[in-house]
């Protein structure tokens, strides 16, 4: 964005105003995440920067909230983390399988009522979570799956599939169907063709859809609040309870771990996206 030498002064001024607006917006987006980081190492119980922290006094920092998170008495985080991972992994598997198969059908040019079916399959992403929560709660209570892992997993499959459908159909839109026809003409069965030819080519899209489904399930709180009993509490539910009652620094320690997790997921997703674009030969 270097300015040409002949730029008039008023445009030059405007350009710097523009850049400072952008800086402000980027700061607004990213800075809140970095507030959590130092405060989670606070030696004191208050959620403000103590004078010691401002002076960078080593005694003002400690790992006590991380210890509390892991070893604290009656602490709910161990169970919550276990539940969160179990639910998210199974929900991701379910979403990926159902979503990928559906995406294959949707990107066939013979698919009847494509528009309306696509809109219906995406709708769980659009409908406010509170409504999905109420509806799914009534259903799960009726079939006796309320307050069970199975019920929550099924609910999260519903919420996760739209992401898989979107990413996989997007990947398939650049897919060269002649390779599958070539495989068929060489005597391959449809299942074999899918496993050996199609799947490796669309794998980046499938995995990034899976990441979305994982994050959706791992981060989801509204539906779980309706469905969960005491044994099915998850990390977001615990955070929600904690944030409503009192903000303790232990929550910030958990939040820091979650930020690190999301950074890892972001990096994976970005690498996959680039790989997918390279495989599909999209030049940017």
């Amino acid at each position, binding site marked *: 964005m270097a300015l040409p030498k002949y730029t008039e002064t008023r445009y030059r001024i405007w350009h710097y105003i523009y850049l400072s607006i952008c800086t402000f917006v980027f700061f607004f987006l990213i800075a809140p*995440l970095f507030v959590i980081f130092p405060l989670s190492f606070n030696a004191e119980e208050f959620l403000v920067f103590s004078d010691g922290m401002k002076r960078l006094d080593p005694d003002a920092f400690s790992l006590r909230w991380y210890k509390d998170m892991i070893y604290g008495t009656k602490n709910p985080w161990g169970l919550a983390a276990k539940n969160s991972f179990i639910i998210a992994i199974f929900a991701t598997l379910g979403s990926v399988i159902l979503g990928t198969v559906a995406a294959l059908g949707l990107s066939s040019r013979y698919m009847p009522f494509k528009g309306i079916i696509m809109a219906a399959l*995406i*709708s769980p992403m659009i409908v*406010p979570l509170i409504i*999905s929560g109420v509806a799914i709660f*009534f*259903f799960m209570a009726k079939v006796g799956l309320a307050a069970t892992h199975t019920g929550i997993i099924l609910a999260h499959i519903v919420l996760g599939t739209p992401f898989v459908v979107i990413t996989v159909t997007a990947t398939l839109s650049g897919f060269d169907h002649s390779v599958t026809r070539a495989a068929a003409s060489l005597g391959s069965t449809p299942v074999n063709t899918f496993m050996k030819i199609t799947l490796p080519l669309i794998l980046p899209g499938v995995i990034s859809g899976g990441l979305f489904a994982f994050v959706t399930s791992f981060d989801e709180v509204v539906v779980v609040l309706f469905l969960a009993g005491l044994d099915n509490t998850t990390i977001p539910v615990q955070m929600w309870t904690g944030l409503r009652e009192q903000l303790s620094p232990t929550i910030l320690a958990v*939040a820091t771990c979650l930020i690190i997790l999301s950074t890892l997921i*972001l990096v994976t997703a970005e690498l996959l996206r680039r790989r997918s674009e390279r495989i599909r030969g999209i030049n940017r």
Partner: protein
Amino acid sequence: MSSETKKILTTDGTPLEESLKKAERKNKIKAFMLVAPLLFFLIITYVFPIGEMLLRSIDDRMVSKMLPKTYVAMEKWDGKELPSEEVFEAFYLDYKILVENKTAGKLSTQLNYEKNGFKSVLKKLARKQKKFTEGNYKEQIMAVHKRWRDVDYWRAIKRRAPEYSYSKYLKGIDMYENEDGNIVQVSEDRRIHRILWTRTLEVAFFVTVFCFLMAYPIAYLLATLPMKYSNLLMICVLLPFWTSLLVRTASWMILLQQQGIVNDFFVFTGLVADDNRPEMMYNKTGTYVAMTQILLPFMVLPLYSVMKTISPSLMRAGKSLGGTPFVTFFKIYFPLTIPGIGAGCLLVFILAIGYYITPALVGGASGTLISNQIAFHMKSTLDWSFASAMGLMLLTGVLAVYWIYNKLVGIDNIKLG
């Protein structure tokens, strides 16, 4: 082609046209079979439950289930004069069972909604009816309290006879059906729901506007910078996008508290006095700030993907033809980004209108939205039919915007990351 042209046949003798149609049908079925598992899964676990919400929201069988004999007896009653002995007897028998089962409280609550003053006369009846002698229940009941001689109370019971009613929907917009069957507004001090609806729309609208104003400049920067810089800056957009909603809300709770960093900064710059720190959380300000930051990536990504496709030579052409930078921007660049603006704004609006978590945590009493009211009725008052009715009213609004989105943008053009 002449009409005498022979039909082209395939090797097995069937006309080619037919054979092709057959193949196409086979392909259609094949494609549909792939979508079917997900479709049926969603219909069972999602579409039916939402349909059931609809039934629940209009279901009004609570009172008629509690007073079955009364409503049978009332069928013949025209509602002009006091009902006959038959109705009084049926009511006495029904009410006796309720008192014995200790569920009479529910009935008095329900009937009190219909007409004030039911609670006390029903209580008195429960006490007195133990000493009732057989026969002539009309006289005995009317002797308990003078209100039993008032035909309005019997009319109130009759009004609850239909098994389905839309009264919950009326309640959702602060209206009700009064004794004469007219739909009127509730008294002014009790109109809480309309305030919530307007506030929800207002918050969703302004959050969309704020997101647009903040997202447009940075999307432009990201789309025009060289790749190596823009990839780095893109992380600033994508990291919040992938981070847990609760983590982001927690960070705003820390920033916006009275002793928080934002207030510290205001004091430091001298904007406010140290002993007069403004309340920025637990009100609408908190909701606006936090929701704008949380939904901002959903505006940046569609804008960016549209801007990426606009060739920079268009702007150069505009300038070379004598347009000033501002004119070329507004005449050439801006119109080309309108599809992205539409996509981003509709998406953010749809997401904002149903927001629950963030307003509940940072909104306080004046910053809560319609979703919070639905959750309140689900969890606290247990008025599930009212929660369902409000949920469906919200859903109708969201689906309307979704329909527009689908028409304008196309659902398969949603961009994720």
